[in-house]
């Protein structure tokens, strides 16, 4: 950990260079299941962001207190707490959204991204950096979810945020709203990133 790292760099890396979904391919379980519409994707992104931010702050604050051998258990307890808070809040303030997302809110607990950030970053950095890193990662994650959700909604339902965009005669590609569509769409997006990567390499050579 060098002392020269800047807040903006730590923030931006999560969004693009180390994007948790596109580059690191983390936390796929809860994301594929709920990204069949843009709204669901954003809601899931916000809920994950809340949990990530909350637990990162807490872990960073407690980093001197937490004893090494029990740190994973401690992280999990902290994460589970924030997930429960998110779960109850969504159920209280938007029952419709809660019905859509269902058990997948609770599954944020086992999202490898969150536990990974605690272990790799928050437990070793000051609160300020932890917040910056968590927000960057959270925005990167939410952005990826949104990309997936939006493309799947546009193709799968012919709508964007619920309003039709192709006129009434559009024939929706139902598959995109179904599980295989989730796998394939993420596969294509990863393919696209690989292609970008390769083109960059090709240009460098």
């Amino acid at each position, binding site marked *: 950990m060098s002392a020269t790292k800047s807040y903006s760099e730590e923030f931006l890396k999560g969004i693009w260079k180390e994007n948790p979904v596109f580059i690191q391919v983390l936390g796929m379980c809860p994301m594929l299941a709920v990204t069949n519409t843009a709204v669901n994707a954003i809601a899931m992104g916000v809920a994950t962001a809340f949990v990530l931010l909350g637990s990162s702050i807490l872990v960073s604050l407690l980093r001197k207190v937490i004893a090494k051998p029990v740190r994973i258990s401690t992280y999990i307890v902290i994460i*589970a707490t924030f997930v*429960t808070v998110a779960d109850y809040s969504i159920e209280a303030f938007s029952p419709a959204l809660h019905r859509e997302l269902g058990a997948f809110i609770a599954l944020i607990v086992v999202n490898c991204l969150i536990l990974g950030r605690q272990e790799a970053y928050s437990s070793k950095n000051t609160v300020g950096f932890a917040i910056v890193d968590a927000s960057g990662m959270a925005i990167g994650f939410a952005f990826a979810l949104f990309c997936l959700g939006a493309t799947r909604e546009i193709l799968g339902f012919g709508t964007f945020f619920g309003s039709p965009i192709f006129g009434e005669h559009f024939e929706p590609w139902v598959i995109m709203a179904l*599980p295989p569509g989730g796998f394939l769409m993420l596969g*294509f997006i990863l393919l696209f990133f690989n292609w970008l990567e390769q083109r960059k390499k090709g240009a460098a050579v």
Partner: protein
Amino acid sequence: MSDLAWIFISALLVNNFTLYYFLGLCPFFGVSSKVSVAVRLGLATIFVMIITSLAATFLTTFVLPHAPYLKLISFIIVIASTVQFVEMVIKKLSPTLFRAMGIFLPLITTNCAILFLALTQTSKEYTLVQGLVFALGAGGGFTIALALMAGLREEGELSKVPNIVKGTALNMIIAGLLSLAFMGFAGLFSA
């Protein structure tokens, strides 16, 4: 079709945890490069699922009515300790088996399929027996998906895959095609 058989088939094929609900993707992609390893991990997962199911039934009957907000925390603690327990038992009983799959055991803790199992059987109010059958079906379905995936990936290693597809992108597309094939099971024994 009787209730129990439907719960089993539904979890095994129709609503396959991995290919329909996207659960357990980390081990699904992480540990599916060899068939032998995949099957072993699948069996260990079935075992942990069964114990988790028992524990979840116990918790929902005796503890959670008094403190519903502890649901998530208690489940995750139960899963983590079950995995630890299984690890210890296997180490004691069969060091050979432990060495063969020891590394994969801790992975099961972060397998969301297990937490989902506990949550689903609670929200569907399954009885003890229904819960066990559900766990057996879900674990079996995970094992089938994992074994198929591993077989295909071993085969894929022999072929000249274009560079930009290599890695997770290809795995994701194979998983998509598997999931597409599993759609044939939709509605099985529902009538």
